[in-house]
Structures are given as C-alpha cells and as structure tokens.
C-alpha cells in the first residue's frame, strides 16, 4: 500500500498543480492581467491616472475584512493598493472640514471626512460582530487581492478597502466602494 502511495505521489502533485493553475491559484498577475481603467482625481485641479500609473505609486498592504449592513462577512483577504491619503495629497490635499467624495462606475457614492482618509473614526468588530477598539487602520485604493488583480466581481479593478495588520479586524462594508473611478475633494 505504501509503495502505491509513493508511486502515486508525483502524479497527485502534478494533478494538484494542473488544477491550481486552472483555478488561477498561482502568483501575482502580470501587467497584462490588469484591465484598462482610469481614476479621475478632482481637487484643486482634475487629473486622470491610468491603472499602470496607479500601480507605479508607493503601495500599502494589509488585511481587509468587511461586513455588510445586514451582517454578511467578506474576507479576510490580503490587499495591496495606494493609500487614499496619498491620492488626496496628489489632488491638492484636504482641509480639516473638507469632504472626500468617492464614486463608482455603477453610480454609487460614499463620502469620507479627513479623519477617515487617515484611518480614523471607523467602527471595528470581532468575528461575533461585537464592537472592538479599532487598531491602526489605513484606507487604500486596492488593485490587488491575495496577490492577484482585484476581480470585477470583487469590486475591481479599483476598490476602496480599509486595511489593518490583523486578519481578524472587521470593518463596515459601506466604506468599501467598489469599481471606483472618481475621487473628489469637496472644499468646505
């Protein structure tokens, strides 16, 4: 029996490899894997960043885990993207009372204040959806999930994600805007 197992092992590994490849389980995506997608940054001036230009900016990584308004949990996943705070700086910065409008291709809009841009004033939950004291959080415009280009069905190519260093920190999904195509600073 053990002989048979030893003999089968290489074949099993090959099979697993083939299935993993078919399921897209390997490695990070190449540039060709990212779809064409532009982000409009509107602040003091308006500018358009292409997806490659966004990916060339300094990146931040962390765990993201969200929950819907009715308690459905999504995650945790590992995300990589550009800090929202960096993008706001590129748009000319935001004052204390300014608001950040993040909108999406599907007509969704969510509004953040400056504290949130810097990862503050979010509510966080444990696995049982009990509120817990928030650890340090950051907000990124994510383009990568678990080492792969963020899929359209997951809100890609660009999605706002609240990340932390811990995989068990859950944040409210209302901030996780999918399919982001415009970020706008509203002066107060």
């Amino acid at each position, binding site marked *: *029996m053990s002989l*048979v197992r030893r*003999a*089968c092992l290489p*074949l*099993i590994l090959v*099979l697993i490899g083939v*299935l993993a490849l078919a399921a897209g389980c390997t490695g990070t995506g190449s540039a060709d894997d990212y779809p064409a997608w532009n982000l409009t940054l509107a602040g003091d001036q308006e500018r358009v960043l292409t997806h490659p230009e966004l990916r060339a900016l300094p990146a931040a990584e962390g765990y993201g885990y969200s929950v*819907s*308004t*009715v*308690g*459905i949990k999504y995650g945790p996943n590992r995300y990589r993207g550009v800090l929202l705070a960096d993008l706001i700086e590129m748009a000319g910065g935001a004052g204390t009372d300014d*608001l950040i*409008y993040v909108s999406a291709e*599907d*007509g*969704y*809009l*969510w*509004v*953040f*204040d400056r504290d949130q841009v810097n990862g503050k*004033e979010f*509510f966080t*939950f444990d696995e049982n*959806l*009990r*509120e817990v004291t928030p650890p340090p959080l950051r907000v990124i415009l994510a383009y990568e999930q678990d080492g792969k280009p963020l899929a359209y069905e997951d809100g890609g190519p660009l999605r706002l994600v609240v990340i932390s260093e811990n995989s068990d920190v859950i944040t*409210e*999904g*209302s901030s996780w805007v999918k399919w982001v195509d415009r970020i706008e600073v509203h002066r107060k």
Partner: protein
Amino acid sequence: MNRSPALAVLVLAVFAASAGCTDTGSERTTLMVIPAGSLLAPLEDVEAAFESQHPEIDVRIEGHGSIQAIRQVTDLGREVDVVLVADASLIPDMMYLPMSEGEGNYTDWYVPFAGNEVVVAYTGRSAGADEITAENWYRVLSRPGVRVGFSNPMLDACGYRAIMVTALAEEHYGEPGLFEAVIGGSFNPPITAVRTDGITTIALPERMRPADEKVAVRDGSIYLLSLLDAGGIDYAFEYRSVAEEHGLRWIDLPPPINLGSAEHADDYRRVHVNLGFQRFRSIGSERIGQPIVYAMTVPRNAPHPDEARMFVDFVLDAFREGKAGWPDPVRPDPEAATVYHATD
C-alpha cells in the same frame, strides 16, 4: 494493488469533485431571493417551510438594505428571482423603468404583504428603564445622559424613519426642541427640523457623525442590537418586529407618529428627510414619510419566474398567518392581497 486502477479512481474523484458531481442536490432549481435585512429572520422560516414542500427547489437568501436589494437587479444586472423590500414605494420608483438589456421594465407590479412600525427598543439595564412609558419616552430620551442609537439614514430605511418619528413627535407632543434634544443637538452643526408651509424638513449632513456620546449611528440594525446588549446605548429606534424577535423591551409609539398606520398617511407625508448626498445615481436623496409597507416582486428577467411566483404566494400565505417577531400582515385576508401594476 495495481497502480492504474488506483490512479483512475483518483483522477475520476478529482474531476468529479471539481465538476460539482458530488453535490446530490445538483438537480434542484436554485431560487435567488433578495430581501431587506429586517425580513431575514422571517424568511429563514419561510425558506425551510417552502423547501420542505418543494424539495426540488433550493432557496438562496441574500440580505441587503432595500435599495441595495433592488440595485442587485437594476444597476448591477444580477439575475434574481424575488426581491422583497421594506419600502413598497421603492419598487415603482426604481423598477418601473426600462431594463438596460432586454425589453420591458425591470418589473411592472408589486404586492404588499406586511407592515411594521417604529418603536423605541431597550433593555432592563437601560438608563431610565424602570420609569419609561409610552407617555414619557421622549422626555427620557431627551436627557443628556441617556444614549440613543439609530441606523445610518444613508444606508437603512429604519434610519431615516427614526429621524421622521422624532420630528413627528415634536409636533405631536407640542414640545419645541424635542428633535434637537433627542437627536439633532448631538451633531455639529446641530441638525434641525425646519417647518415651512406645513412641511417639516430635516436636512442631514454628508457624514452622520455625532459630536458627542449621546447619539450613536451605525450601519444597520444588527449593530444597534449589539450595542444595546453591550450597554453602549440605552435606547434604539427599531422596527417592532426586530425588537420582538430579539427579545428586547420596547415602547409602542402612538399611531400618528409611528409610521405604522395607513390612517395617518397624510400626517406622515408632512415630514421630509433630505439625505446628505445622493448615494445612488438611480434614486434621489429625498425621503418622504409614509406608512411602512413591505412589498415584493419578481423581476422580469428572473431566471425561474414560475418558481418565483410560487414563492411569492407562499410568502403571502406565511405572513397572513404571521408569527411573533414578524412584520404584521398588511391585510388579514389573503384574498384581499392587492397587486399594484404599473398602470394602476
């Protein structure tokens, strides 16, 4: 043991598993049902009963806020069999519209099946729990040390309904300043209820972020319930069915303000809430008070329209019988169930 048969079995097993062939229920029709959050608990019961009568159908339930439930069909183009919302008016407003793909509207009808009302939910540990009554509730909630929670009006119909109820209470009880004492004064700048030509309008800020600890705003009802349990708030504006389902205490509010009475529809219509921004391109940001009515429809592009209609009929029957912790049936007689068509 020969190597080839073992390998053949392994390969077959792997491919069978990857193809989903091990799922004994693969012959069942999957019915995609998207309800509003406050219907999730009742629909779990309905799902179990329906599947026991129709073992060939697998009901999949995915809860969302009412507007998001509809958007799964309209803006997001998903194939959904039944949509159930906590605000009947959303269906004609958002679905009596031409489909982006295909012919006809997303739907041309809906059927109301239940109603609800806003109550003030609390626990035995809430500040003032031993003295609050249906007569003095607004005075208890007005106290500076009493913490009040409601869900975010941007995200949850119960949230803007909490605002409406509090504004209606100010007029009903003849207590100027009540709205600011319970909710408005906890924001900077304060949120005010402005009366002009018999209409009370409350304009909300873009960010519903209270400036003090008296008021708590959360994304949805379940988070308020969790806060109540933990003692983070003393009172929460909730639907009666939700308070009952979770075993909470609650104060019934008078019909002229609780948004639960069709007879008071004209009173309710006099309160308008302007949300801080237009969250969805597909629906405006003004909400006008009206009785809370749950309704459902089958989208025109539902993949299983016949099974969906069976489910709709089943829901109507189930809600007619009712149960503790469920929204109340709209009408006691199922024969009186009214289907509203686009031409009505």
